[in-house]
């Protein structure tokens, strides 16, 4: 690795642009590694000696057995449900004639636009066993057929409610990975299976499912990771159901105790890290066994399964999923925001925009939270995208060595830990001496960038990987410098990736709760922090208005950027075609 480092340095010192690229990549790696190093130093180094005894502090957590049981039972069952739903929707859209076209492909991603906190609040307002608006409606309907209930029939404030909401919010992860797997699977294999006499179901289980085993494994890993890391849903639904989850306990140990119980919090978080590692090992073992299909290559086709009489019911199920996952919780938020207060029977005569005026104008804390979150999301997303793009340039453009591989791995390392662990590391690293950045906007910015940088890197990397070396070489042969090549050739091709990465970071940072709840201070309130504060002390009308505003801002920004990205994508494709025509070079596929 040392030899790789020397090679890379020699290589990079030749051009000022490449010096900047290398410096940014190394700073990004240091920023990603520092919080994690602080966590492990805090936990395992006592008085300058390695000491694992602090792991024992986990036993000080009251009700530990119950917390672990709740967490793992909810995460396992919700992951299974999300996997099944995501796989079914992906199969419908990619492999059957029940697809709803572009709308169908976009719809499973809609829950991404509704921040999990908004979704959790929406579900609670809708199906609280006694005051839920949806329950009151259902009781009314059931009353007409002679069934009179005092509460329910749905109880979202329960183990099943918590599991269900977690599953619904996480379906996009499994959909995203499995639909990509289905797109890459050669449809001819399924076609041959059917020609040999196998039916749709048999083909699915004997050909399709084994063929996307890799994607299913990745989906399970993602679902378990995000299930264990999620804080919004456990804190809203879990607390109402009096079900304590690991993420909520860790945050409470850090924010509701003095002094903060860092040792116990980190030890508890490491349980989640170990669980994800176990799933990862199982996934690797599963992949190393058995045989895989060779993907067909350029002649690849996707055979469409004709569902005949099942087509309409399947489409109805897909539409129902969208209504249930995204529209229903938003409807309840709209009702409560417009009527001003939470009620089983909405006071329609009370409709006004008062709650929106409250959170935007009258309530200075909410207004400044929106302002802080917008500023942090814009700057954080910009900083994250610039850093990620330059770090990818460092890793992918120069001479590949173990050192560049190491830098790449370090930048992505936070993604393998729970957001909670990384955030604790940021607190340990930056809140006290010598910087004293605790409860400032700067520590929030650092935290957001460190936590979300790996996601930006992965998003931009997929665009950057399409830029072949031939294009760079053609530019260099034509006399362009490193910076000129990057700005004129590479950057235009990765713009769609940059825009997508920016949109992803913006939405995540705007609605972030997990990192914000530990990093924000009362004088540096951000939206997630404020939502939680209103949930504990304020009016549900204001709560609904604020969560709706976040959803609207996220949706408008994402759709605008997608439109811009598509336009830029079309223009750059045209420009690239010209480059290809002139130079004969081809972008990598």
């Amino acid at each position, binding site marked *: 690795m040392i030899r790789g480092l020397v090679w890379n340095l020699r290589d990079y010192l030749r051009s000022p642009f490449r010096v900047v690229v290398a410096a940014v990549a190394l700073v990004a790696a240091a920023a990603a590694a520092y919080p994690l190093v602080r966590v492990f130093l805090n936990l395992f180094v006592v008085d300058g000696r390695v000491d694992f005894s602090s792991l024992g502090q986990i036993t000080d957590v009251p009700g530990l057995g119950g917390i672990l049981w709740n967490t793992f039972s909810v995460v396992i069952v919700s992951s299974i449900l999300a996997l099944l739903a995501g796989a079914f929707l992906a199969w419908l859209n990619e492999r059957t004639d029940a697809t709803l076209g572009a709308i169908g492909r976009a719809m499973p991603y809609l829950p991404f636009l509704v921040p999990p906190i908004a979704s959790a609040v929406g579900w609670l307002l809708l199906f609280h066993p006694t005051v839920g608006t949806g329950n009151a409606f259902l009781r009314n309907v059931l009353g007409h057929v002679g069934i009179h209930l005092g509460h329910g029939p749905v109880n979202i404030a329960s183990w099943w409610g918590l599991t269900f909401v977690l599953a619904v919010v996480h379906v996009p992860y499994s959909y995203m990975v499995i639909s990509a797997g289905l797109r890459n699977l050669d449809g001819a294999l399924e076609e041959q299976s059917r020609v040999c006499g196998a039916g749709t179901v048999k083909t699915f289980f004997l050909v399709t499912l084994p063929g996307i085993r890799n994607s299913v494994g990745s989906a399970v890993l993602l679902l378990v990771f995000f299930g264990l890391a999620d804080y919004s849903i456990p804190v809203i639904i879990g607390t109402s159901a009096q079900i304590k989850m690991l993420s909520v306990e860790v945050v409470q140990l850090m924010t509701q105790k003095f002094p903060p119980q860092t040792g116990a919090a980190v030890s508890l978080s490491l349980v989640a890290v170990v669980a994800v590692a176990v799933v990862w090992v199982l996934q690797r073992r599963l992949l190393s066994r058995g045989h895989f299909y060779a993907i067909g290559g350029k002649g690849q086709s996707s055979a469409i399964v004709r569902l005949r009489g099942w087509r309409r019911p399947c489409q109805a199920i897909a539409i129902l999923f969208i209504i249930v996952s995204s529209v229903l919780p938003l409807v309840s938020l709209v009702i409560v925001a417009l009527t001003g207060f939470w009620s089983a029977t909405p006071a329609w005569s009370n409709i006004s925009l008062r709650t929106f005026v409250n959170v935007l104008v009258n309530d200075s804390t909410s207004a400044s939270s929106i302002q802080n979150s917008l500023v942090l999301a814009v700057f954080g997303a910009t900083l994250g995208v610039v850093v990620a793009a330059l770090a990818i340039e460092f890793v992918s453009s120069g001479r590949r060595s173990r050192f560049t591989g190491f830098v790449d791995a370090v930048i992505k390392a936070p993604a393998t830990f729970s957001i909670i662990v990384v955030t604790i590391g940021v607190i340990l690293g930056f809140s006290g001496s010598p910087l004293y950045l*605790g409860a400032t906007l700067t520590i929030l910015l650092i935290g957001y960038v460190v936590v979300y940088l790996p996601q930006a890197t992965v998003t931009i990397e997929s665009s950057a990987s399409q830029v072949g070396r031939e294009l760079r070489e053609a530019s260099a042969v034509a006399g362009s410098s490193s910076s000129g090549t990057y700005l004129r050739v590479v950057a235009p091709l990765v713009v769609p990736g940059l825009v997508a990465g920016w949109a992803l970071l913006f939405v995540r940072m705007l609605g972030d709760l997990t990192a914000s709840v530990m990093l924000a201070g009362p004088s540096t309130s951000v939206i997630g922090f404020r939502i939680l504060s209103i949930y504990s002390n304020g009016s549900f009308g204001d709560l609904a208005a604020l969560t709706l505003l976040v959803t609207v801002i996220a949706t408008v920004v994402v759709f605008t950027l997608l439109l811009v990205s598509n336009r830029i994508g079309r223009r750059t494709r045209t420009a690239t075609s010209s480059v290809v025509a002139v130079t004969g070079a081809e972008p990598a596929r």
Partner: protein
Amino acid sequence: MTIAKSVAALGLAALALMPLSACGNWGGSKADATVESVGNMDALVNAAKKEGSVTLYSSSVEAIDSAEAKAFQAKYGITVNIIKIGSGELAARYQTEASAGNVQADVIASTCSDAPTFKAIVDKGWATPAKDLGLPALSGAGASALAVDGVTFKYVLMPVAIGYNTAMLKGADVPKDWTALGDPKYRGKIVFVDPDTSGPFYWTFLQWLDNTYGDDLVRAVGAQQLSYADVTTARNQLGAGQYAVDIPTFKVSMNSTAATGAPVAAAVMPKTTANESCIGVSGPKAPHPNAAKLYANFMTTPEGAAAINSVDGVLSPFGGASASMGNPDPFPTSYDENHLRGLLGKRK
């Protein structure tokens, strides 16, 4: 300009503008300041005006702090940043920040029941004991406002009331005093703020009820098929008509819920006790120590008391309150949880 250049320029411009967007707290801590004496009011006012603002962490009702802040701001032109925060989190956050040498709150306002926090912040030198602030109103007869061995002082009293749904209870059905809660007509219609999850105030209130009316009333209340919920959920359930009665609550809280259009009101009890909120004043390490001292002093003046008394349902211990607010009993200083739990029939 090419697309790439535009994107790069926008990105760099956004990053360059970051330090200029002075809309928040981006920096770290600062050195200790000199704190003027209340005896030299002109010097204190000038120093406070130079600091320009004061930050208040408060677990109290927002309407009270807003009224006080508005009057203070009108008199001195000093901005009051009110940060609403739950009492448990307030205690942890203040101490965590202070122990890192990064005191953010100039003044804290929390329930006087949270004596350990007030003691701790004074013992560690982060806050000045109220008795040592030199506030004229806290000497002589005014010393009765001091609490927790003089480390803090009471600045507002909120008489405990019964919240009720105005659509469900009218006329004679509205409870007139605490003994009404034992009436079987309220069975299954009462939501009680859960003392296990909502803080010691609620156990202490039950202790007052037990001390004043005896075990039989608390036992009778416990037999009413009570539903337990946190403060916010209880208030929302009352507004939603799920329950007819919400206890214990305050007139000021019910007023703010009623302002959203919810059909709720508070029944003011002729004999009751009051939740007492206390003040802690940070020392020289705070960002605005002079403004903090001036703000604390303002609360004890007739103008400050008038601002508190202007809020319907609360009263200042520094006089001027309407006679209609009555004279609430002192709040008990301790409670017997096991005894009260047994009377209510409430399991842990």
